[in-house]
């Protein structure tokens, strides 16, 4: 059994342990080798096999960074490598080979003090073969232009694997490697998989049955296509796909530093959902975000999109140094741009040249120059209204604006009345000095009356002001990008220190990528956006397509979705990634057709079950010989519970909502005495992407299940399986209420259909006889227990519906919600 909770993590072993490991592997090497005999004769690819090794073990001292380069040797540059370390065709005369196999501590590479793992025997074999074959350097794959691959001829595989281009590209290595794909998943599994992948929600029983019946009459192909079209057309698609983008750009509801003020910024989320639903091409999606403000007569949407540059953490004025805050904001912007659009870790070149990728520190600051000319203070005011920092725009509807104006007028008029009353009182006050006793009494009565009026007016003003700001919270605002007229000069910052300016630099893109085509008056962010989305840009399309693949398979074709650089993993199917990228760009960067194309492939439709032999041949499924199975994201787990219990309120857009959470979480961290005030009614049944996201303390229902804190750009979430997750799914009071809601529906069914109804509603499958038996027994036992303990039963509510039967069924549904098959997508 695997005990995740007790497995130790990765500690690099001491050197002698590595050596013993190598020795051990050398002993088993011949056997392992003979298993993969075919591979040994295959030529080694520099991109796939060699560059990742050199990058990891060698580049930090023999790579792009000039300041740490040793012996003037660059192993990322063939000229330098051939001159000093590698003789193409001969390992015996290659110094590199002598060094990496050396057993002498003083000459072995990587040296012990680098704390890098030594090369394994398999790795050594590959390097040896590469040198023998001529040590051919190819341009790094991700930086070369995208090329349309030759589609392999239809295979001699089963019919269903012969036509679809994706299948042809995936299956081309099957024969050579002796692989057999898994069977197609059954209709129920497939319907649930497609529905979860496209909308983040499982199918309702109604949709499931519609699909099953349609399949009976039209066949799988047609039925599936109709289902996919229907799902892609539903507004829930944009909510689901948009959520991945919101992780990537660290969208949240608070400012994330110091007092962590609420930020009224949901307009950006609304725009993202809408952009996906309308399938705005990804080129436009990117351009609006990067430079929407620089387009001619920008629309409200195009301006809203530029909030992309404002999603970073921002501090309120008072303690930090504004020039330091300014620098941090700009670095955060460059990081977001390069992670989200280029899949590069450009921020690594902030203090020094990049260790692995050809980005110099100077080039980092040339990128920085595009983002540092914002016409704004770097910090919010001490108590920012709506948490916003100018420039921002109001997106109030005409009705909302009218209402706001009404409030403003009311407040203004109350103010005037207050001033008048006060003045009147002061006048009486002056009279009081010279008044007789008799007059005094009268005057004092007047004063009392004025005071009463004042306090009433102040009270009215307070409540009007409160009402206005309450109303204002639901009005949409969004921070936008705006250029200063006079561009700020940009310097390289020495060692990344904001107060150590070095050489002056101009806006530009890194030299290893296609060159920028700047406007005559100087390069702009719009030029940068056009450069990014030009067909010859090698990264934008690949990175975007890979993320979609990752969302549909759990793992990208490039596993490191956030890093397409030298230290990232090479693509498992390079030609497939090229093909999909070409198709994506040619289609006008449309996401919906891309998703549909992938979902219709046999590759996607495989069952996750495989025979023993198939497992052995493709143990980690890199060859895509079976479907993938993995745990749903936090939001999907909660949304699934809401949908299946028929509680989900499918309202689109709007301000974030606060479903109940355990007491005291905010109180334990806040600086300004905030308390979490849960919403009531429909608001607590909205989809999870609308849940209020306080960066200081994000909702535990989400973070316990691996949702990121949204304070840094995250291109992929990890998935763990922990006791806290078990506690959450077993005990969350709202989830138990949902179980009760579904139990009530179950009890409306005919008695003999209840178990099937409940099981199918939650899992999309029909329970077999064994499963039904377990449920029946549980039901009986629960009923007996609740009959025996009326006290416990009372806790389900004092309504007449709270019968032992309902309580028993609630626990059954609670069981179904905790099944592994329920929280997984298969």
């Amino acid at each position, binding site marked *: 059994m695997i005990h995740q909770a007790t497995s130790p993590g*990765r500690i690099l072993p001491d050197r002698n342990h590595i050596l013993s490991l190598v020795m051990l592997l050398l002993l088993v090497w011949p056997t392992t080798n003979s298993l993969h005999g075919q591979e040994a004769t295959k030529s080694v690819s520099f991109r796939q096999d060699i560059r990742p090794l050199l990058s990891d073990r060698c580049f930090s001292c023999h790579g792009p960074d000039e300041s740490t380069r040793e012996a003037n040797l660059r192993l990322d540059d063939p000229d330098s490598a051939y001159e000093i370390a590698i003789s193409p065709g001969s390992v015996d005369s290659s110094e590199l080979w002598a060094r990496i196999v050396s057993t002498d501590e003083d000459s072995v590479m990587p040296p012990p003090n680098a704390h890098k793992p030594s090369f394994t025997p398999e790795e050594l074999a590959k390097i040896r073969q590469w040198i023998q074959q001529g040590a051919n350097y190819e341009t790094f794959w991700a930086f070369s232009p995208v090329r349309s691959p030759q589609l392999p001829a239809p295979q001699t595989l089963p019919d269903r694997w012969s036509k679809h281009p994706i299948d042809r590209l995936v299956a081309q290595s099957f024969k050579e490697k002796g692989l057999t794909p898994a069977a197609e998943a059954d209709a129920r599994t497939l319907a649930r998989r497609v529905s979860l992948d496209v909308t983040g929600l499982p199918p309702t029983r109604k949709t499931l049955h519609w699909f099953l019946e349609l399949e009976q009459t039209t066949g799988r192909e047609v039925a599936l296509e109709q289902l996919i079209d229907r799902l892609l057309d539903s507004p829930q698609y944009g909510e689901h796909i948009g959520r991945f983008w919101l992780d990537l750009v660290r969208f949240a509801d608070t400012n994330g530093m110091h007092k962590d003020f609420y930020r009224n910024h949901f307009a950006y989320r609304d725009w993202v959902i809408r952009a996906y639903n309308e399938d705005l091409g990804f080129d436009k999606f990117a351009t609006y975000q990067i430079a929407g403000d620089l387009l001619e007569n920008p629309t409200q949407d195009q301006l809203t999109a530029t909030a992309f540059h404002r999603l970073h953490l921002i501090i309120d004025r008072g*303690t930090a140094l504004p020039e330091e805050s300014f620098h941090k904001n700009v670095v955060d912007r460059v990081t977001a741009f390069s992670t989200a659009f280029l899949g590069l870790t450009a921020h690594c070149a902030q203090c020094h040249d990049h260790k692995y990728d050809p980005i110099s520190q100077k080039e980092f600051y040339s990128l920085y120059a595009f983002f540092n000319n914002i016409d704004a203070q770097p910090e919010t005011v001490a108590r920012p209204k709506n948490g916003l920092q100018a420039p921002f725009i109001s997106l109030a509807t005409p009705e909302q604006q009218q209402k706001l104006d009404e409030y403003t007028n009311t407040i203004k008029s109350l103010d005037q009345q207050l001033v008048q009353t006060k003045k009147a009182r002061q006048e009486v006050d002056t009279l009081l000095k010279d008044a007789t006793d008799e007059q005094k009494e009268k005057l004092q009565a007047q004063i009392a009356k004025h005071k009463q009026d004042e306090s009433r007016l102040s009270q009215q003003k307070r409540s009007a002001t409160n009402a206005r700001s309450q109303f204002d919270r639901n009005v949409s605002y969004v921070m936008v990008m705006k250029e200063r007229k006079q561009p700020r000069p940009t310097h390289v910052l020495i060692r990344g220190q904001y*107060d150590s300016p070095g050489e002056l630099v101009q806006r530009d893109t890194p030299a290893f990528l296609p060159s920028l085509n700047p406007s005559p008056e100087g390069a702009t962010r719009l030029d940068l956006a056009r450069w990014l989305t030009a067909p010859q840009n090698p990264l934008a399309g690949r990175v975007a397509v890979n993320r979609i693949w990752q969302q549909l398979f759990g793992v990208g074709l490039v596993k490191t979705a956030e890093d397409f650089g030298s230290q990232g993993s090479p693509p498992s199917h390079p030609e497939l990634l090229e093909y999909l990228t070409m198709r994506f760009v040619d289609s006008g960067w449309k996401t919906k057709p891309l998703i549909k194309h992938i979902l219709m492939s046999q590759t996607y439709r495989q069952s996750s079950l495989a025979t023993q032999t198939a497992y052995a041949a493709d143990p980690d499924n890199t060859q895509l010989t079976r479907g993938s199975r993995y745990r749903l994201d936090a939001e999907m787990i909660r949304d699934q519970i809401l949908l299946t219990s028929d509680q989900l309120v499918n309202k689109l857009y709007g301000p974030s909502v606060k479903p109940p959470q355990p007491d005291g979480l905010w109180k334990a961290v806040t600086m300004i005495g905030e308390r979490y005030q849960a919403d009531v009614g429909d608001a607590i049944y909205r989809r999870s992407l609308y849940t209020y996201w306080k960066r200081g303390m994000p909702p535990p229902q989400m973070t316990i299940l691996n949702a990121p804190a949204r304070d840094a750009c995250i291109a992929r979430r990890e998935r763990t399986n922990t006791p806290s997750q078990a506690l959450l799914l*077993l005990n969350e009071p709202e989830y138990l209420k949902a179980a009760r809601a579904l139990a009530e529906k179950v009890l409306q069914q005919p008695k003999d259909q209840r178990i099937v109804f409940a099981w199918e509603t939650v899992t999309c499958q029909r329970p077999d006889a064994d499963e039904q038996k377990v449920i029946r027994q549980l039901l009986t036992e*629960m009923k007996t227990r609740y009959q025996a303990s009326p006290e416990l039963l009372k806790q389900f509510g004092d309504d007449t519906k709270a019968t032992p039967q309902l309580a028993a069924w609630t626990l059954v549904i*609670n069981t179904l919600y905790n099944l592994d098959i329920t929280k997984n997508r298969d």
Partner: protein
Amino acid sequence: MSHASHLLESRRRFLLNSGMGLGAAAMSTLIAPQLSAMPSLHHAAKAKRVIFLFMAGAPSQVDLFDYKPELIKSFKQELPESVRGKQRVTAMTRGKSKMVAPTKFKFQPQGRSGLWMSELLPSLQKHADKLCLIKSMNTDAINHDPGKLSFCTGSEIPGKPSIGAWLSYGLGTLNRDLPDFIVMPSAYWGGKVNVQALYSRLWGSGFLPSKHQGTSFQATGDPVLFLSNPPGVNREIRGTMLESLKQLNRKHFNELGDPEIETTIAQQEMAFRMQASVPELVDLSQETKETLEMYGPEVNNPGSYARNCLLARRMAESNVRFIQLFHRGWDHHSNLPVHLQAQCKDVDQPTAALIQDLDQRGLLKDTLVVFAGEFGRTVYCQGKLTHEVYGRDHHPRCFTAMMVGGGIRGGTEYGKTDEFSYNVVENPVHVRDFHATILHLLGVNHEKLVFPYQGLDQKLTGVEKARVVHEIIA
């Protein structure tokens, strides 16, 4: 297919599905655990566990530990240019006069070792011979958010794992029924001004798998989130329900062969055990009257620092690896003497009790207790200045941290500051050196506790060179 062989094969499937993105660099770890060739530690450990008492807001070293008797002569005089140098100060005191504010509190040498300590810490004074005061601590951060973040994660930029998460990842767990890393923020404190916010990223797992993140214990309600059964469910019902759940999950495991299902079953069982073990852990009814009295009257109030100290001892006994307390309210820009006194009243007796309690139970020798804030405070005054009333701004250039137990040499002082407690003049200890030293005491070489992320072998101590302070280790 036999059960066992199926499991072995699909272990790989588990690795793929866990989505941990295994790059080439991580491949070796796929092989190694099966060969069991990995040593669990890099060298013999002095400490098994850590209790980290984090004084959020930054207590004043000038008034607590770093005694400068001559300062009184400089009262209200401008801090000399030569001392101040050209480094940055905060936006609050930039461009303002910087007049020296000597401490109003009395210092006395304590114990056989003669460590100088302030009268504000009468209980801790009694343990002077067990303490090590590092007076030459320094950090890069000048404001709370980056300061706390770098003290807790080694980086001012969000997204890096906290120390506790690194240790959970590197060393695994010491017990089966409790988390490896527990966090307890105080629910209230004496100094009521300027109480800086906490952020869950201070105990987050950053790019490490999130099972390594700190579990925050709540002062009210369930100590662990969602620990209690919801209304209408008791332990017997939950037990029965879990039995059926296990039968069904087991059946699905046999059909699907995904070992992740086995993990789900194991974690549901663990959750059930935690429902018993956690309430037991926080139940103080078995503590003697003497013990409770030792921690002081506040020990009876949930969320107090005193109660959290006693809980920390109980957790140390139960072998929780890393226990971190956060006590807020140390940010004394004005009227420092009043607020500092109140804060010290919160922490002095309970901290001393914790040391004594651990010692009596034989736990201090392998439990490292750390007491520190994110930076120090300026010798010059912010706001009103008299002999009795003054405030102090943030000061990253020097501050004092305290370490006790867990292989630390007691009764020692390390590092020196100038006569103004402004600059380090001897044996500087940067936050990353401090981290390296903590790891070292736990048997871990900070250069070798790594995780590949964004193309780098990431470390707690970052890319700059860090040094283990061997001089303070017994």
